[in-house]
């Protein structure tokens, strides 16, 4: 269980990027952090990954306080960030340092198969398309079997078709070990496709505005009515979060009650 308690981040120049974030993510849960630009989504992820230090508050993973990068926490960045001098295989194996050669081989081969790039194992990253590179980057994070996987808008630079196929690849990998996933996105459809819960954030300073459970059955039908209404609920919450920064959020419970009334 990943728990964030009263987390704040103030940069050296006085900018308050995050203020009093409290959030609990259960084991195996996929949580989407969603919100307009500048609301601190990426900052929050970097704090969990240990790439930046929090100004106040605590991050705990199964009771252990996280300070700095942790072996059980993996991250996929917005860009693939593959090392151009390593082949696809070596890139995926990058984090498998203490693992025996046979085990490494097996794990990487399996991951390559899962992302459908087995025949590209010995090519350089520059020979791959953007979507393929991002798949390699996801595989690199998965092979270390992290308990928590952080995804920082990993599909934002891709076209809609590539994105949809990457969603499937991601869920395919996730099914195997079911890590806890925190996904940052600004794409509402993506949040509804992947997440069990959407956390809507609000800018200046970044804070949590509302949480919406997404209880649709998997695999999710993107054309169905429940999908559509979930998307609409998130969009409404986003709208509120941007329009009325000081106003108390209308709670999800009230809205569900309203829906029942209808």
């Amino acid at each position, binding site marked *: 269980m990943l728990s964030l308690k009263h987390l704040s981040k103030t940069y050296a120049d006085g900018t308050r990027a995050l203020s009093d974030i409290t959030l609990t993510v259960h084991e195996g849960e996929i949580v989407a952090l969603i919100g307009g630009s500048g609301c601190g989504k990426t900052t929050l992820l970097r704090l969990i990954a240990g790439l930046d230090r929090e100004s106040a508050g605590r991050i705990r993973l199964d009771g252990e306080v996280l300070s700095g990068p942790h072996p059980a926490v993996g991250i996929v960045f917005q*860009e693939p960030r593959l090392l151009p001098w390593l082949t696809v295989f070596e890139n995926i194996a990058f984090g498998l340092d203490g693992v025996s050669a046979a085990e490494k081989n097996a794990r990487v081969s399996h991951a390559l198969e899962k992302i459908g790039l087995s025949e590209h194992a010995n090519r350089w990253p520059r020979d791959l398309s953007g979507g393929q590179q991002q798949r390699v980057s996801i595989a690199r994070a998965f092979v270390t079997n992290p308990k928590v996987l952080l995804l920082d808008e990993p599909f934002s630079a891709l076209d809609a078709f590539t994105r949809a196929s990457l969603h499937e690849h991601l869920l395919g990998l996730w099914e195997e070990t079911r890590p806890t996933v925190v996904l940052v996105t600004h794409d509402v459809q993506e949040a509804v496709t992947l997440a069990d819960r959407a956390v809507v954030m609000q800018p200046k300073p970044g804070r949590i505005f509302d949480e919406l459970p997404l209880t649709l059955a998997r695999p999710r039908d993107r054309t169905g009515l429940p999908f559509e209404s979930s998307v609409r609920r998130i969009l409404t919450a986003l709208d509120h979060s941007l329009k009325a920064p000081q106003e108390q959020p209308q709670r999800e419970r009230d809205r569900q009650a309203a829906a029942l009334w209808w």
Partner: protein
Amino acid sequence: MTSSRESAVSGNAETVAWSSQEGAAALAAPDFAEKRRAFDGRILLGFLLPIAIALLWEAAVYFGLSQGRLIPPPSRILATLEALAKTGELWAHSWMTLWRVLTGFAIGAVAGIVLGTLSGSSRTIRQFLDPTLQALRAIPSIAWVPLFILWLGIFEASKVALIAVGVFFPVYLGIAGAILSLDRKLVEVGHVFRLSRLQLARRILLPAVLPEAVIALRSGLGLGFMFVVAAEFMGASEGLGYLLVDGQQMGKPDQIVAAIIAFALLGKIADSLLVVASMPLVRWQDTVRERL
């Protein structure tokens, strides 16, 4: 030295442009055989102009349009080269020059790599070291010659020192610049996988810096050949530079041109060897190499 730095920088820009082009072209599956053929054709095209000029000059001298005394025709230059090779002089002089360049290059390159690495990786060391080195760099290297001769004598030591100084600056600048321009995003990947400082240097810093380091070493080697001529001008009884001076004093232009050709070949061979030796290390971006 400024120009060599600039060429390194523009080479870098080319790298970036080319790799993105390459990324786009990857889907189109380029026909390698076709690429190779076009490449060879262009090389042959480059030979056309010098060969034409050589043949024209040869004909002009042959038909008596020119005496060819101050500008010897190609046949006489070849004959001189052959004669020098037969007596063994050519090899002795070439070997001497090569030895000086390589010794000076080794000293200058090692110093450049060490100080460049220090200056590139630590802000404190950079602030301490860099201003002094930049000030020294502003001195034309040839200006050191009188001092070096006073300090080290007129024999090998002063010559090697001059070459080492010439090699040092482009290597130092290239290495420090390459480390400073290292992509923070890739370093973060290392942090995420909790690499130690040493592992970070070996697994991310070193490979990322290598292509630019090779370019820095190549421009250093080029300058080494430039300075060996200067060094051998200032008083030597052996070396290709001596052949040049001797040719001038004895009025033998064919010997001068022969020595120049020997210099060109030697420099090109040394540069190619450096390229071939570094090829396996920078194979991941070898498309760039074809363009440089």
